[in-house]
């Protein structure tokens, strides 16, 4: 396992460098884009704060004065980078709370949701993908393709609402929305998970088909291993490789889906917050959120890398 440890460290290092790059890029890009947005930031922030009943020009001017929005942009960027260097994400322009605290609470919820989604997608996609991979072109295979296409063509919110109707309103199995208990996690996870599974079950299926048609698989059989043993000891492991890598790509898609699902299920997550922050021109919040999301993505990708190395010993034995 020593070789594995070395490999792991190497990966860790490269990912670490990447993390720094990401941090800088994300920070600057998001800042630049926020600056590029049309409309008067002071007005947007005031709107975000006071709501349409209380927001007016006066409040906007007050905000402008309070936040020093009339400073040159570079000064503002520099200020942000300075605070960041002290591991401080600044305070939310809209809510006046510490961005770090906001994210701390919301990120947890979002990660929980994302994890739930991945689990749900695997619970659905693995059996489906493997089964259709074992009989390519079979009934199950073509059906799962059709269903996948269908699910992928339904927007997440519609899917979510249908699930709520079936499982919460009709079957009364789970709560509709909120986040009191674990049961609250099920439907949102399922909504996202179905979206993911729609694609990943095809990826799994293809991987299994590849593995099943490989020479080594036939040899494993002819040397006397039962079909089941061949599947569990050889096919699945080989098929797992592309699948795990694909999860890496999905992570990005997750962050998209999270936004929708969070607002459908009133889930206090980070995606929801990001949207509000963008509309409210809450620059510190946007940068902070984008930064954290970026780093989270890098971290999760690291796990994916390590998982791949774990599965695939090639290149380890040097």
């Amino acid at each position: 396992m020593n070789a594995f440890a070395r490999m792991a460290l190497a990966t860790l290092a490269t990912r670490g460098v990447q993390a720094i790059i990401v941090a800088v890029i994300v920070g600057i890009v998001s800042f630049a884009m926020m600056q590029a947005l049309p409309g008067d930031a002071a007005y947007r922030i005031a709107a975000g704060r006071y709501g349409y009943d209380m927001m007016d020009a006066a409040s906007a001017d007050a905000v402008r004065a309070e936040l020093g929005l009339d400073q040159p942009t570079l000064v503002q960027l520099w200020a942000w980078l300075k605070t960041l260097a002290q591991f401080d994400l600044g305070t939310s322009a809209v809510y006046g709370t510490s961005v770090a605290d906001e994210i701390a609470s919301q990120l947890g919820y979002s990660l929980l949701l994302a994890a739930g989604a991945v689990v749900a997608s695997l619970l659905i996609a693995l059996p489906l993908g493997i089964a259709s991979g074992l009989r390519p072109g079979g009934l199950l295979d073509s059906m799962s393709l059709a269903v996948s296409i269908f699910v992928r063509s339904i927007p997440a919110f519609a899917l979510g609402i249908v699930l709520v109707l079936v499982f919460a309103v009709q079957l009364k199995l789970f709560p509709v929305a909120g986040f009191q208990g674990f049961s609250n996690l099920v439907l949102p996870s399922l909504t996202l998970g179905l979206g993911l599974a729609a694609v990943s079950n095809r990826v799994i299926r293809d991987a299994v088909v590849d593995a099943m048609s490989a020479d080594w698989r036939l040899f494993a059989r002819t040397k006397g291993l039962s079909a089941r043993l061949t599947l569990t000891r050889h096919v699945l492991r080989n098929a797992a490789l592309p699948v795990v890598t694909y999860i890496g790509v999905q992570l990005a898609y997750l962050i998209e889906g999270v936004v929708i699902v969070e607002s459908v299920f009133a889930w206090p997550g980070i995606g929801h917050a990001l949207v509000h922050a963008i509309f409210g021109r809450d620059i510190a919040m946007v940068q902070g959120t984008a930064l954290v999301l970026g780093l989270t993505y890098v971290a999760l990708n690291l796990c994916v890398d390590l998982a791949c190395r774990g599965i695939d010993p090639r290149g380890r034995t040097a």
Partner: protein
Amino acid sequence: MTHSIEVDMLSVFAGPTRLMGPVSFSVAPGGTLVIMGETGAGKSLIAQAILGTLPGALRAEGHITINGSRVDTLPVAERAAMWGHELATLPQEPWRALDPLMRAFRQVTESYRFVAGHPPVQAREDTAEAFQALGLSGAEDRLPGALSGGMAQRVAFAAATAGKAPILIADEPTKGLDAARHAKVVDLLAKVPATGGTLLAITHEVAVTRRLGGHVVVLRDGQLVEQGPAKTVLSAPADSYTRALLDADPQCWPHSNPHSAGDVILTAQDLAIARDGKHLIDGFNLSLKQGERVALTGPSGIGKTTLLDALAGLLPPASGHVTRAQGLSRHAVQKLYQDPPAAFPTRIPLEKSLRDVARLHKTDWGFVLRTLEHLGVRPSLLSRRPDEVSGGELQRISIARALTVRPSVLLADEPTSRLDPITQRDTLRLLEKVAAEENIAVVLVTHDRHIADKWADRILKLAK
């Protein structure tokens, strides 16, 4: 008397067309059956039919009896139950037959564990012994990718025979092995009948047949041409094709007439080469003259292929240099590959590939067609894709493709090691012929010293 394998009027069909057969033969315990014939004569189909691993599109007819019980009527599941316990198989391509992600040791252990049904600890001990016995010590923790062909073949052997199946079916077990390893594997097979087992070997190498002995079946175009005890078949073949097959054995080739060499066109001065940081060859010198035929031999893994790449300018030498004669075009050095299908774009009809080259080098298409005709390739084949023509034909087409460039040097990397003796001989003869006509220098990498002796003007032996 009981036969461990008894085949009666076996034929294999693809739809309505008969691909192979009918053949009938039988082997008794302690006996050996060798199936000979040209590549693509359907030898493998027999093995697959006996095993029950024929691809879905194919269908077998006739009786197959194994250890007294008829199997061809059994459902797949029950036939699969015999694998490893009554029938063991040696794969054609040991590399591709081993799980790329599992270390050699475990791939054997799992046979002892799950096929022989030994408890884990004992399974590991047995594996260790097997590795000892097969001289695989040190390879335990290697992945198939890191095994040499011979090692992979022996690992596969260990994995296949762990179940102590009395019958071993070996399909082209010596494909692409160098002389030394070649012998090792054949010895391994020879042991099987010696220990009371039954061996069914498929090969196109006369040498292998000679060494294994036993009962010989000769196939051609799926037809049984002759069978009998090895001694009689090999010494006094009744059928002309068998004779041709025996004559085609490099041992029996006449010495090809030496060619008057012209001026030097390619020189290598104390060349040192390395691949992936691994140091392979150094102090290699060569001055190649127009039209001469050089054979390059040496144990596998020493870096013959890498050396060719260096000569072809595909790989920068670690030190020393390769210099081409003045006025030699950039594409004057061409390569022929060991595995012809791998040398062509997979999904493109052959004609397209050839026309591309012809167009690029402003070669008249007529010339290409003439060359093909010259090499005895039916033009109709050109409409097919590489995987749709036989290895012999494809190798000839790849020669034609190389000639389209009007090269001065051909670097041939075991171009015939996967072909049966007749095709091999014909292909090399053609190569010799065109080389002479076009005054092309050929460097032939081979591990068959007879070929080297008989075919080349001079031999370069690479040694550690």
